[in-house]
Every structure is written in C-alpha cells, then in structure tokens.
C-alpha cells in the first residue's frame, strides 16, 4: 500500500506527461479524465448547437426538459438507448456492427496526444501530429463500411461521397500542416512533429504561427480551417449526410445506440480537428497577448480569467433563476437552475485558489480556444448553404491544393531567407 502511494506521488514532482514518465496510474487517470471531459463536452455541444441554431433562426429551441432545455441531451441519450437496434435485411451484420465502433475508436484515440498543457496530455509522441492525422483518417473507413454494409442506396451514395470528400481534403490539410512543421524548425534548426513541441516552438519564437510570416501563417490556417470542416462532414460540406438528398447519408439505416455512437464520433472528431488547429496555429495552451501585455501584473490578471468565466456563467444562471415563471409547476426547475449556478460558482471560486490556478490555467486557455472553433462550426451550419458536389471537388482540388503547394514553397523560402535578409537590412539601415 505504501509503495503504491509512493508510486502515485512520484509522478507529482515530474515535469513530463504521464505517458513520457511511464506512470501507469496517472496515465489511466488522464485517459479517464479526457474520456469523461470529452463526453461532457459532446453533451454540452448537443445542447448548445440546438440552442444557438434556434436563436439564429429566431426560435427558442429546446425549452421543456429542465430549465431552458438543459436536460434535453440526457433525455435524448435515454431515448436513444431505449430504441430498438435494427439490422436491415440482407445487411452484412459483422461489418454493420464494426463500423460505428471503428469511427468511435478513431475519434477518441487521437486525444492521447492532444496537449491541454505542457504536462497535461496523456502522452507526448515524437510523431504526434502525424499520429493525429493518421488515426483520424481511419474514421473514413468506418463511414465507408457503414454505408456499404447497410445494403441500401442512400447510405452507399453517402459513403461514396464521404470517402471522396475526405480523401480529397486530407491532401490540402496535410500541406497546411507541413508548412507549420517547417516553421517549428526556424530557431533551433530541427523541427518537431510532437504536439507539445509545436506549442513550445511558438513560445520560443514569441509568436503564434497564425501570425508568422504574415500573411503566410494566416493562409495556412485558412486552408486548414476549411479542410477541417470538410473532414468532419459538417455544413456546408455535409454532402455525405445531406438530408434533402440522402435522408441521413451513411447512417440512414442505423438506429438507437449505434446511431448515437456515430453522433458521439462526429462531435469528438470536431473537437479533435479543432484542437489540431489550436495547437498548430493558435498557440495551444498559451494565453493570448504574451508580448503586448507581459509582466507579473498581467500574468496575474490573465490567471484570474478562468475563475471569472465560471463566475460569469454562474451569474447568468442566477439571472435566469430570477426570471423563471413564478408558477408552482416551475418550482423544481427553478431550484435546479439555482443549484447549477451554485455548482458553477463553486468551481469558479475553487479555480481562484493559487495552487489550482497555476495548474488549470493552460487547460482553460486550450479549451476556450477549442470552444471558439466549436461555436464557428455551429455558426457555419446556421449561415452557409450546402455546396454542390462538383463545387466541393473544385474547392478541394483546384483552390485549396494549389494554395497549399504555393504556401509550402513560400514558407520554405521565407524561412530560408529570413536570417540573411535581416542581416542585410541591419547593414544597410
């Protein structure tokens, strides 16, 4: 027992990720934390997407289950688990059952290397970004298998569209990623593929890569931001599941639990690609304005933001508690909302404790940036009409791919000539 406690404590003094330290206990804890956090994030996204889309379309959205529909995702989950699991006639049972599992596995496995902080990742791999791209590209296999095994026309067409789309946009995505990997090698001479290493390179160079070699970094970020929406089959690139044409695309024949696995995988894949974008271009866990607003005072001010954010959410809860209808039937809901506000407020207060503040600050900034991307996803869905398939292919192959190639050459050139040009300028001026 004593040895076990020592084993647990031995990691606390280390400044490495649990995977790199080889501490199995903390690896398990981190995996469970990531898995749980991800599931909560997917549930929250489900509610937020419906609410935000509704407000964009001047509707109320879910209002019945819980205050402001807060419990709607849980009701949906229970409904999905209770539904009958249907296997279509003459479907390929084995492949039909395996498909959703492959999609979920691929979507969750990538989170092993996502760096929520300099030590807050399950592990740090030397091939981090390559691993993320590789494993997330496996999810297309699940989509194709699901479409084919359903033995039905709509899913098959959906699967064909999806595989064509995902394979096309992976190319542009890869080129944008390579330009960032070139940038990581600038100061030290050796680049890195490790997700933590990429953020540390941005820290060392004193700039997020989205601002590097303006506007080259920004163009790379743009290419990735478009390609990642196409990779995750979301609007306006949601042709594989275009409701008006294909009912529900590749998962038309799925129901109940298996359908909910596809749902889970779609949202966690969205979070995964967003965290790639955040890590590569937006400085990962680094706080904003490190150069402009530096010094101890600003550090303190920024470290208070996580707690203040939670307090702000708590205040919104209390504000809406006051505004709840004063009818006896709403009594339970009012108490529930107030209780939710108290929980959020307590979390906010806990985050103000200096020891906790130092540990969770980086997780907060990373999650906040990812949350920004999640909002963008919903915003796209609310505003952009769906592309036609030939337009989709044209954007992928004729616009993004040449842009990516040119970007790669220009980034390499800029990195190569940066030092000589600076030297020459310092002599001339």
């Amino acid at each position, binding site marked *: 027992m004593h040895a076990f406690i020592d084993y647990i404590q031995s990691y606390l003094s280390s400044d490495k990720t649990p*995977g790199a330290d080889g501490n199995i206990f903390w690896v398990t804890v981190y995996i469970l934390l990531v898995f749980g956090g991800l599931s909560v994030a997917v549930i929250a996204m489900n509610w937020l997407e419906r609410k935000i889309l509704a407000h964009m379309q001047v509707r109320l959205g879910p209002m019945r289950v819980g205050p402001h529909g807060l419990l709607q995702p849980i009701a949906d989950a229970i409904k999905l688990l209770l539904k009958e699991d249907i296997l279509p006639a003459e479907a390929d049972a084995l492949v039909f059952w395996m498909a959703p599992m492959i999609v979920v596995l691929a979507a969750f496995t990538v989170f092993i290397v996502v760096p929520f902080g300099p030590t807050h990742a399950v592990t740090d791999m*030397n*091939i981090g970004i390559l691993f993320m791209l590789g494993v997330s590209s496996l999810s297309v*296999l699940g989509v*194709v298998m699901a479409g084919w095994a359903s033995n039905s026309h709509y899913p098959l067409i959906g699967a064909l569209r999806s595989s064509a789309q995902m394979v096309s946009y992976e190319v542009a995505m890869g080129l944008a990623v390579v330009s960032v990997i070139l940038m990581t090698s600038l100061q030290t001479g050796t680049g890195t593929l490790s997700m933590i290493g990429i953020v540390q390179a941005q820290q060392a160079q004193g700039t997020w890569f989205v601002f590097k070699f303006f506007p080259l970094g920004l163009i790379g970020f743009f290419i990735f931001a478009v390609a990642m929406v196409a990779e995750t089959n979301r609007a306006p690139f949601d042709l594989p599941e275009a409701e008006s044409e294909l009912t529900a695309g590749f998962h038309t024949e799925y129901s109940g639990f298996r359908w909910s696995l596809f749902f889970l995988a779609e949202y966690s894949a969205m979070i995964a690609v967003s965290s790639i974008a955040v890590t590569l271009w937006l400085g990962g866990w680094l706080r904003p304005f490190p150069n402009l607003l530096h010094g101890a005072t600003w550090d303190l001010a920024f470290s208070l933001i996580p707690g203040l954010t939670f307090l702000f959410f708590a205040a919104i809860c209390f504000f809406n508690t006051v505004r709840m209808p004063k009818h006896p039937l709403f009594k339970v809901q009012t108490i529930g909302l107030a209780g939710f506000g108290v929980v959020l407020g307590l979390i906010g207060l806990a985050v103000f404790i200096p020891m906790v503040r130092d540990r969770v600050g980086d997780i907060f900034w990373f999650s906040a940036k990812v949350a920004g991307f999640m909002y963008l996803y919903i915003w796209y869905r609310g505003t952009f009409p769906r592309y036609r398939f030939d337009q989709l292919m044209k954007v992928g192959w004729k616009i993004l791919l040449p842009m990516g190639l040119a970007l790669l050459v220009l980034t390499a050139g800029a990195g190569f000539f940066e030092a000589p040009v600076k030297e020459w300028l310092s002599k001339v001026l």
Partner: protein
Amino acid sequence: MTPVATPFFFYLLAATMLVGGVMVITRKNAVHSALALITALLAQAGLYLMLYAPFVAGVQIILYAGGIMVLFLFVIMLISIERTMKERQFNKQWLIGMVAAAALGGLFIAVYTTTTKGAALFPEGRLTYGESTNTQDIASLLFDRSTGMYMFSFEIASLLLLVAIIGAVVMSKKRI
C-alpha cells in the same frame, strides 16, 4: 520508457498479420478481403512501432490504412458484389503460387542464414534510433549532407510514383 511484454505483443501482431493475410486471399467477398488487408496493415504498423520506428508506423497508417485502402474500398463498392460472389474463381494457380511462395520463403531464410566473410548479413543487435528523435534521425538519413545516404533511392521511388500518376492520367483520358 522501456517496452513491456515484447514477445507477447510480437506474437500477437504477427498472428494478426498472418490471419489477416490469409483472409485476404480466402474471402470471396471483396470488401471482406479489403477489410482483412487493413487489419494486416495495421498490425504491420504495430510491428514497426516495436522496431522503434514510430515515424514509419505513422506513415504506414496514414498512407496505407487511411489513404490507399479507402480508395480500394471505393473501387470495390462500385463493383456488383452479388455477381462476384456467384462467379467461379478462374485464377486457379495453386501450383505456381505454392512454388513462388516457397521460393520467396527460401530466399528469406537464405538471406538470414548466409554469412559473407564470416559475418552474417543481419547483425545480432539491430540499429536503433532514439524514440524521442526518430523523425529527425530519419530526416538526417535522407537529407543530411554528411550522413544522408538514401536520398537517391528516395527520389527514384518518388519518380516511380510520378510515372504511375502520369500513366493513370494518360490511360483514363483519351484526349488530353
């Protein structure tokens, strides 16, 4: 971190690869064959990991399992599976197949056991690169001015792929 249970994982991955490989050629349904091939390729990526080559393993997953096999499935799904299921196999070449497999296996064993000038072709300890700098080591093997020795073969291989791409375009487009 030092690896754990190395023999167990080696035999597990090797067995997965062999079963996958056998299933590729024995399944009548082409989609099942493709899925078995994906299993074999993923197990192979695991073997690369065991050989301290994470970069090669990553590239294996991203290119073969994620890229090429998706295109395979894409093409297979366009064929009518029902007809191929009923069709009799017409490539019955057991004898030639066995001879070729035996020859290849014999070649492997011969290479493994041959000694030239008293030294085996395969040294006892294999050359390992550190896990934390694997990608950088591969890059310097390819491109470094002093230690890079595989640049030429690398470029030749990419030229071969370029020829294949051009060939595909020429064959599919009547008028360019």
